[in-house]
Protein backbone atom coordinates (compact mmCIF):
# COMPACT_ATOMS: atom_id res chain seq x y z
CA UNK A 1 0.00 0.00 0.00
CA UNK A 2 1.44 3.37 -1.03
CA UNK A 3 1.39 6.18 1.54
CA UNK A 4 -0.29 9.31 0.19
CA UNK A 5 0.88 12.85 0.93
CA UNK A 6 -1.20 15.29 3.02
CA UNK A 7 -2.15 17.12 -0.19
CA UNK A 8 -3.47 13.91 -1.77
CA UNK A 9 -5.42 13.15 1.40
CA UNK A 10 -6.91 16.65 1.40
CA UNK A 11 -7.93 16.27 -2.25
CA UNK A 12 -9.61 12.89 -1.63
CA UNK A 13 -11.58 14.10 1.39
CA UNK A 14 -12.41 17.40 -0.30
CA UNK A 15 -14.06 15.44 -3.11
CA UNK A 16 -16.24 13.64 -0.57
CA UNK A 17 -16.92 16.96 1.17
CA UNK A 18 -18.23 18.42 -2.11
CA UNK A 19 -20.24 15.46 -3.42
CA UNK A 20 -21.79 13.90 -0.29
CA UNK A 21 -25.26 15.43 -0.47
CA UNK A 22 -27.84 13.82 1.78
CA UNK A 23 -25.66 12.42 4.54
CA UNK A 24 -24.51 8.81 4.82
CA UNK A 25 -20.93 10.04 4.92
CA UNK A 26 -19.49 6.85 6.37
CA UNK A 27 -20.44 4.95 3.20
CA UNK A 28 -18.74 7.62 1.07
CA UNK A 29 -15.62 7.35 3.23
CA UNK A 30 -15.54 3.57 2.95
CA UNK A 31 -15.89 3.67 -0.83
CA UNK A 32 -13.07 6.19 -1.21
CA UNK A 33 -10.61 4.84 1.37
CA UNK A 34 -11.08 1.10 0.92
CA UNK A 35 -12.43 0.48 -2.57
CA UNK A 36 -11.16 3.37 -4.65
CA UNK A 37 -7.84 4.54 -3.14
CA UNK A 38 -6.86 1.31 -1.44
CA UNK A 39 -5.46 3.32 1.48
CA UNK A 40 -7.04 1.08 4.13
CA UNK A 41 -8.21 -2.51 4.31
CA UNK A 42 -11.84 -3.26 5.14
CA UNK A 43 -10.75 -4.36 8.64
CA UNK A 44 -8.76 -1.22 9.27
CA UNK A 45 -11.73 0.85 8.19
CA UNK A 46 -14.11 -1.01 10.49
CA UNK A 47 -11.65 -0.61 13.38
CA UNK A 48 -11.50 3.14 12.70
CA UNK A 49 -15.30 3.28 12.59
CA UNK A 50 -15.51 1.44 15.91
CA UNK A 51 -13.33 4.07 17.55
CA UNK A 52 -15.18 6.87 15.81
CA UNK A 53 -18.52 5.61 17.09
CA UNK A 54 -17.39 4.98 20.66
CA UNK A 55 -15.76 8.37 21.18
CA UNK A 56 -17.69 11.65 21.22
CA UNK A 57 -17.88 13.68 18.04
CA UNK A 58 -19.21 13.08 14.57
CA UNK A 59 -18.55 9.56 13.31
CA UNK A 60 -17.47 10.80 9.88
CA UNK A 61 -15.06 13.43 11.22
CA UNK A 62 -13.61 10.95 13.73
CA UNK A 63 -13.01 8.38 10.98
CA UNK A 64 -11.34 11.10 8.89
CA UNK A 65 -9.04 11.97 11.82
CA UNK A 66 -8.06 8.33 12.39
CA UNK A 67 -7.57 7.54 8.68
CA UNK A 68 -5.62 10.76 8.09
CA UNK A 69 -3.36 10.11 11.04
CA UNK A 70 -2.70 6.55 9.93
CA UNK A 71 -1.81 7.69 6.41
CA UNK A 72 0.30 10.78 7.11
CA UNK A 73 0.45 11.60 10.83
CA UNK A 74 -0.84 14.90 12.26
CA UNK A 75 -0.74 16.67 8.88
CA UNK A 76 -2.79 13.84 7.41
CA UNK A 77 -5.40 14.10 10.16
CA UNK A 78 -5.75 17.86 9.65
CA UNK A 79 -5.90 17.43 5.86
CA UNK A 80 -8.59 14.74 6.05
CA UNK A 81 -10.88 16.52 8.52
CA UNK A 82 -10.57 19.95 6.92
CA UNK A 83 -11.09 18.53 3.43
CA UNK A 84 -14.27 16.86 4.62
CA UNK A 85 -15.71 19.86 6.46
CA UNK A 86 -14.67 22.97 4.48
CA UNK A 87 -16.77 22.55 1.28
CA UNK A 88 -20.04 22.02 3.16
CA UNK A 89 -19.25 24.88 5.55
CA UNK A 90 -18.68 27.25 2.61
CA UNK A 91 -21.92 26.16 0.96
CA UNK A 92 -23.70 26.70 4.30
CA UNK A 93 -22.37 30.27 4.48
CA UNK A 94 -23.94 30.93 1.08
CA UNK A 95 -27.24 29.25 2.09
CA UNK A 96 -27.19 31.19 5.36
CA UNK A 97 -26.68 34.55 3.63
CA UNK A 98 -29.49 33.75 1.18
CA UNK A 99 -31.69 32.82 4.13
CA UNK A 100 -31.04 36.10 5.93
CA UNK A 101 -31.70 38.02 2.69
CA UNK A 102 -34.92 36.25 1.62
CA UNK A 103 -36.47 34.90 4.82
CA UNK A 104 -39.30 37.45 4.80
CA UNK A 105 -40.39 36.59 1.28
CA UNK A 106 -43.61 34.53 1.73
CA UNK A 107 -42.72 32.08 -1.05
CA UNK A 108 -39.32 31.42 0.53
CA UNK A 109 -40.84 31.16 4.02
CA UNK A 110 -43.36 28.53 2.83
CA UNK A 111 -40.64 26.52 1.08
CA UNK A 112 -38.40 26.71 4.17
CA UNK A 113 -41.26 25.48 6.37
CA UNK A 114 -41.60 22.48 4.04
CA UNK A 115 -37.86 21.89 4.09
CA UNK A 116 -37.72 21.97 7.90
CA UNK A 117 -40.73 19.64 8.12
CA UNK A 118 -39.01 17.19 5.77
CA UNK A 119 -35.76 17.41 7.79
CA UNK A 120 -37.67 16.39 10.93
CA UNK A 121 -39.05 13.40 9.03
CA UNK A 122 -35.55 12.47 7.94
CA UNK A 123 -34.13 12.62 11.48
CA UNK A 124 -37.13 10.64 12.76
CA UNK A 125 -36.51 7.92 10.17
CA UNK A 126 -32.78 7.74 10.96
CA UNK A 127 -33.59 7.50 14.69
CA UNK A 128 -36.11 4.68 14.15
CA UNK A 129 -33.79 2.84 11.78
CA UNK A 130 -30.62 2.85 13.85
CA UNK A 131 -32.63 2.44 17.04
CA UNK A 132 -34.71 -0.53 15.82
CA UNK A 133 -32.86 -2.92 18.14
CA UNK A 134 -33.15 -0.62 21.15
CA UNK A 135 -36.88 0.04 20.62
CA UNK A 136 -37.61 -3.70 20.67
CA UNK A 137 -35.66 -4.46 23.84
CA UNK A 138 -37.55 -3.49 27.01
CA UNK A 139 -34.50 -2.57 29.09
CA UNK A 140 -32.99 -0.53 26.27
CA UNK A 141 -36.36 1.09 25.60
CA UNK A 142 -36.47 2.19 29.24
CA UNK A 143 -33.13 3.97 28.76
CA UNK A 144 -34.33 5.51 25.48
CA UNK A 145 -37.42 6.92 27.18
CA UNK A 146 -35.58 8.00 30.34
CA UNK A 147 -33.03 9.93 28.26
CA UNK A 148 -35.77 11.42 26.08
CA UNK A 149 -37.80 12.61 29.08
CA UNK A 150 -34.84 13.99 31.05
CA UNK A 151 -33.13 15.84 28.19
CA UNK A 152 -35.97 16.41 25.73
CA UNK A 153 -38.85 17.30 28.02
CA UNK A 154 -37.36 18.29 31.40
CA UNK A 155 -34.27 20.00 29.89
CA UNK A 156 -31.90 18.43 32.39
CA UNK A 157 -28.52 19.61 31.12
CA UNK A 158 -26.76 17.03 28.97
CA UNK A 159 -23.61 16.61 31.14
CA UNK A 160 -25.79 16.02 34.20
CA UNK A 161 -28.08 13.61 32.34
CA UNK A 162 -25.13 11.62 30.99
CA UNK A 163 -23.51 11.55 34.42
CA UNK A 164 -26.74 10.12 35.90
CA UNK A 165 -27.57 7.63 33.16
CA UNK A 166 -24.29 6.47 31.63
CA UNK A 167 -22.89 4.55 34.62
CA UNK A 168 -26.06 2.43 34.90
CA UNK A 169 -26.31 1.94 31.13
CA UNK A 170 -22.72 0.75 30.94
CA UNK A 171 -22.75 -1.37 34.12
CA UNK A 172 -25.80 -3.27 32.86
CA UNK A 173 -23.77 -4.33 29.82
CA UNK A 174 -20.59 -5.00 31.81
CA UNK A 175 -18.38 -7.78 30.59
CA UNK A 176 -19.36 -11.06 32.23
CA UNK A 177 -17.06 -13.93 32.97
CA UNK A 178 -17.49 -16.86 30.62
CA UNK A 179 -19.72 -14.89 28.26
CA UNK A 180 -19.06 -15.77 24.65
CA UNK A 181 -17.45 -12.94 22.73
Amino acid sequence: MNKPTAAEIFAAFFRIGVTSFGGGLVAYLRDALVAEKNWMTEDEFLAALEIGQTLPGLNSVNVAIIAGRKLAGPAGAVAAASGLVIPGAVILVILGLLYVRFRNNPDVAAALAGIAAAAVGLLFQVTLKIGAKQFLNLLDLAFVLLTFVLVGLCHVSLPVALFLIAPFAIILHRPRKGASK
Partner: protein
Amino acid sequence: MREIVSLLNVFCLLSLLAVGGGSAVLPEMEHEAVTVHQWVSADDFATIYSLGQMAPGPNMSMVGLIGFKAANHAGMSTGWALAAMVIVLLAFYLPSSFLTYAASHVWDAFRDNPWRDAVQKGMAPVTIGLMLAGVHAVGKTASYNPGHSLHFNMITCGIGLLVTAILFARHINPALLILAGGAAGWFFLRMN
Protein backbone atom coordinates in the same frame (compact mmCIF):
# COMPACT_ATOMS: atom_id res chain seq x y z
CA MET B 1 -16.71 39.58 22.81
CA ARG B 2 -18.77 38.05 25.62
CA GLU B 3 -20.93 36.35 23.01
CA ILE B 4 -17.86 34.78 21.39
CA VAL B 5 -16.72 33.38 24.74
CA SER B 6 -20.18 31.94 25.44
CA LEU B 7 -20.26 30.39 21.97
CA LEU B 8 -16.85 28.83 22.60
CA ASN B 9 -17.92 27.44 25.97
CA VAL B 10 -21.17 25.95 24.71
CA PHE B 11 -19.87 24.38 21.51
CA CYS B 12 -16.64 22.97 23.00
CA LEU B 13 -18.72 21.24 25.63
CA LEU B 14 -21.22 19.97 23.04
CA SER B 15 -18.29 18.59 21.02
CA LEU B 16 -17.22 16.38 23.93
CA LEU B 17 -20.79 15.37 24.78
CA ALA B 18 -21.68 14.18 21.27
CA VAL B 19 -21.93 10.51 22.18
CA GLY B 20 -22.73 8.32 19.19
CA GLY B 21 -22.70 11.20 16.68
CA GLY B 22 -23.69 14.81 16.24
CA SER B 23 -27.47 14.38 16.36
CA ALA B 24 -27.19 13.39 20.03
CA VAL B 25 -26.41 16.98 21.07
CA LEU B 26 -29.23 18.51 19.01
CA PRO B 27 -31.71 18.87 21.93
CA GLU B 28 -29.08 20.44 24.21
CA MET B 29 -27.89 22.70 21.39
CA GLU B 30 -31.44 23.87 20.70
CA HIS B 31 -32.00 24.59 24.37
CA GLU B 32 -28.75 26.56 24.74
CA ALA B 33 -29.03 28.48 21.46
CA VAL B 34 -32.75 29.32 21.57
CA THR B 35 -33.80 29.41 25.24
CA VAL B 36 -30.70 30.07 27.33
CA HIS B 37 -28.60 32.42 25.15
CA GLN B 38 -31.22 33.46 22.58
CA TRP B 39 -28.66 33.44 19.79
CA VAL B 40 -31.34 32.39 17.30
CA SER B 41 -35.14 32.12 17.32
CA ALA B 42 -36.80 28.69 17.38
CA ASP B 43 -37.75 29.18 13.72
CA ASP B 44 -34.17 30.10 12.82
CA PHE B 45 -32.89 26.99 14.59
CA ALA B 46 -35.26 24.69 12.71
CA THR B 47 -34.34 26.34 9.40
CA ILE B 48 -30.60 26.28 10.09
CA TYR B 49 -30.83 22.61 11.02
CA SER B 50 -32.65 21.80 7.79
CA LEU B 51 -30.16 23.84 5.72
CA GLY B 52 -27.50 21.56 7.19
CA GLN B 53 -29.33 18.58 5.71
CA MET B 54 -29.10 20.12 2.24
CA ALA B 55 -25.37 20.94 2.22
CA PRO B 56 -22.77 18.25 1.45
CA GLY B 57 -20.33 17.09 4.12
CA PRO B 58 -21.19 16.62 7.79
CA ASN B 59 -24.74 17.94 8.40
CA MET B 60 -23.76 19.32 11.78
CA SER B 61 -21.57 21.98 10.14
CA MET B 62 -24.77 24.00 10.40
CA VAL B 63 -23.53 24.95 13.90
CA GLY B 64 -21.42 27.58 12.12
CA LEU B 65 -24.60 29.38 11.07
CA ILE B 66 -25.69 29.60 14.71
CA GLY B 67 -22.41 31.41 15.42
CA PHE B 68 -23.00 33.65 12.39
CA LYS B 69 -26.51 34.58 13.51
CA ALA B 70 -25.45 35.04 17.15
CA ALA B 71 -22.79 37.59 16.11
CA ASN B 72 -25.26 39.24 13.76
CA HIS B 73 -27.80 39.44 16.55
CA ALA B 74 -25.21 41.04 18.86
CA GLY B 75 -24.72 43.79 16.27
CA MET B 76 -21.31 42.70 14.96
CA SER B 77 -20.27 43.34 11.35
CA THR B 78 -20.47 40.65 8.66
CA GLY B 79 -16.72 40.14 8.94
CA TRP B 80 -17.01 39.43 12.64
CA ALA B 81 -20.02 37.22 12.02
CA LEU B 82 -17.95 35.12 9.61
CA ALA B 83 -15.19 34.95 12.22
CA ALA B 84 -17.76 33.79 14.79
CA MET B 85 -18.85 31.10 12.35
CA VAL B 86 -15.28 29.79 11.99
CA ILE B 87 -14.78 29.93 15.77
CA VAL B 88 -17.95 27.90 16.39
CA LEU B 89 -16.96 25.32 13.76
CA LEU B 90 -13.53 24.94 15.39
CA ALA B 91 -15.09 24.77 18.86
CA PHE B 92 -17.47 22.06 17.73
CA TYR B 93 -14.97 19.95 15.78
CA LEU B 94 -11.58 20.38 17.51
CA PRO B 95 -12.14 18.99 21.03
CA SER B 96 -13.64 15.67 19.91
CA SER B 97 -11.05 15.45 17.13
CA PHE B 98 -8.16 15.90 19.57
CA LEU B 99 -9.66 13.22 21.78
CA THR B 100 -10.05 10.83 18.85
CA TYR B 101 -6.53 11.57 17.65
CA ALA B 102 -5.09 10.82 21.07
CA ALA B 103 -7.25 7.75 21.62
CA SER B 104 -6.40 6.21 18.25
CA HIS B 105 -2.76 6.02 19.44
CA VAL B 106 -3.63 3.72 22.29
CA TRP B 107 -6.61 2.07 20.68
CA ASP B 108 -5.03 -1.23 19.66
CA ALA B 109 -4.37 -2.02 23.31
CA PHE B 110 -7.85 -0.84 24.18
CA ARG B 111 -9.79 -2.40 21.31
CA ASP B 112 -10.09 -5.88 22.81
CA ASN B 113 -10.95 -4.53 26.24
CA PRO B 114 -14.39 -5.99 27.06
CA TRP B 115 -15.48 -2.66 28.54
CA ARG B 116 -15.40 -1.03 25.12
CA ASP B 117 -18.25 -3.29 24.10
CA ALA B 118 -20.09 -2.41 27.32
CA VAL B 119 -19.73 1.31 26.59
CA GLN B 120 -20.97 0.92 23.04
CA LYS B 121 -23.93 -1.33 23.93
CA GLY B 122 -24.86 0.63 27.03
CA MET B 123 -24.71 4.05 25.38
CA ALA B 124 -26.63 3.01 22.24
CA PRO B 125 -30.11 3.49 23.81
CA VAL B 126 -28.97 6.77 25.42
CA THR B 127 -27.94 8.03 21.97
CA ILE B 128 -31.30 6.98 20.53
CA GLY B 129 -33.11 8.76 23.37
CA LEU B 130 -31.08 11.90 22.64
CA MET B 131 -31.86 11.67 18.93
CA LEU B 132 -35.55 11.32 19.74
CA ALA B 133 -35.22 14.43 21.91
CA GLY B 134 -33.57 16.05 18.85
CA VAL B 135 -36.61 15.17 16.72
CA HIS B 136 -38.76 16.87 19.35
CA ALA B 137 -36.41 19.89 19.66
CA VAL B 138 -36.79 20.70 15.95
CA GLY B 139 -40.26 19.18 15.51
CA LYS B 140 -41.95 21.34 18.14
CA THR B 141 -41.13 24.32 15.92
CA ALA B 142 -41.15 22.83 12.44
CA SER B 143 -43.82 20.11 12.61
CA TYR B 144 -46.29 20.47 15.49
CA ASN B 145 -46.11 24.10 16.45
CA PRO B 146 -48.89 25.40 18.74
CA GLY B 147 -48.33 28.87 17.24
CA HIS B 148 -49.43 27.66 13.80
CA SER B 149 -52.91 26.79 12.57
CA LEU B 150 -54.13 23.20 12.61
CA HIS B 151 -54.09 23.24 8.82
CA PHE B 152 -50.43 24.34 8.80
CA ASN B 153 -49.45 21.68 11.35
CA MET B 154 -51.25 18.96 9.43
CA ILE B 155 -49.26 19.82 6.34
CA THR B 156 -45.89 19.99 8.11
CA CYS B 157 -46.53 16.74 10.02
CA GLY B 158 -47.76 15.16 6.80
CA ILE B 159 -44.59 16.13 4.93
CA GLY B 160 -42.42 14.78 7.76
CA LEU B 161 -44.25 11.46 8.11
CA LEU B 162 -44.29 11.02 4.34
CA VAL B 163 -40.51 11.51 4.24
CA THR B 164 -40.14 8.95 7.05
CA ALA B 165 -42.32 6.43 5.22
CA ILE B 166 -40.64 6.95 1.84
CA LEU B 167 -37.17 6.47 3.34
CA PHE B 168 -38.26 3.15 4.87
CA ALA B 169 -39.74 1.99 1.58
CA ARG B 170 -37.18 3.26 -0.95
CA HIS B 171 -33.51 4.02 -1.13
CA ILE B 172 -33.59 7.69 -2.12
CA ASN B 173 -31.00 10.40 -1.50
CA PRO B 174 -32.42 12.29 1.53
CA ALA B 175 -31.26 15.65 0.13
CA LEU B 176 -33.68 15.17 -2.78
CA LEU B 177 -36.54 14.45 -0.37
CA ILE B 178 -35.71 17.59 1.60
CA LEU B 179 -35.91 19.62 -1.61
CA ALA B 180 -39.21 17.90 -2.47
CA GLY B 181 -40.41 18.88 1.03
CA GLY B 182 -39.56 22.49 0.17
CA ALA B 183 -41.59 22.27 -3.05
CA ALA B 184 -44.51 20.67 -1.19
CA GLY B 185 -44.31 23.33 1.52
CA TRP B 186 -44.39 26.11 -1.04
CA PHE B 187 -47.29 24.51 -2.90
CA PHE B 188 -49.53 23.66 0.07
CA LEU B 189 -48.66 26.45 2.53
CA ARG B 190 -48.64 29.24 -0.03
CA MET B 191 -51.97 28.25 -1.58
CA ASN B 192 -54.07 29.58 1.28
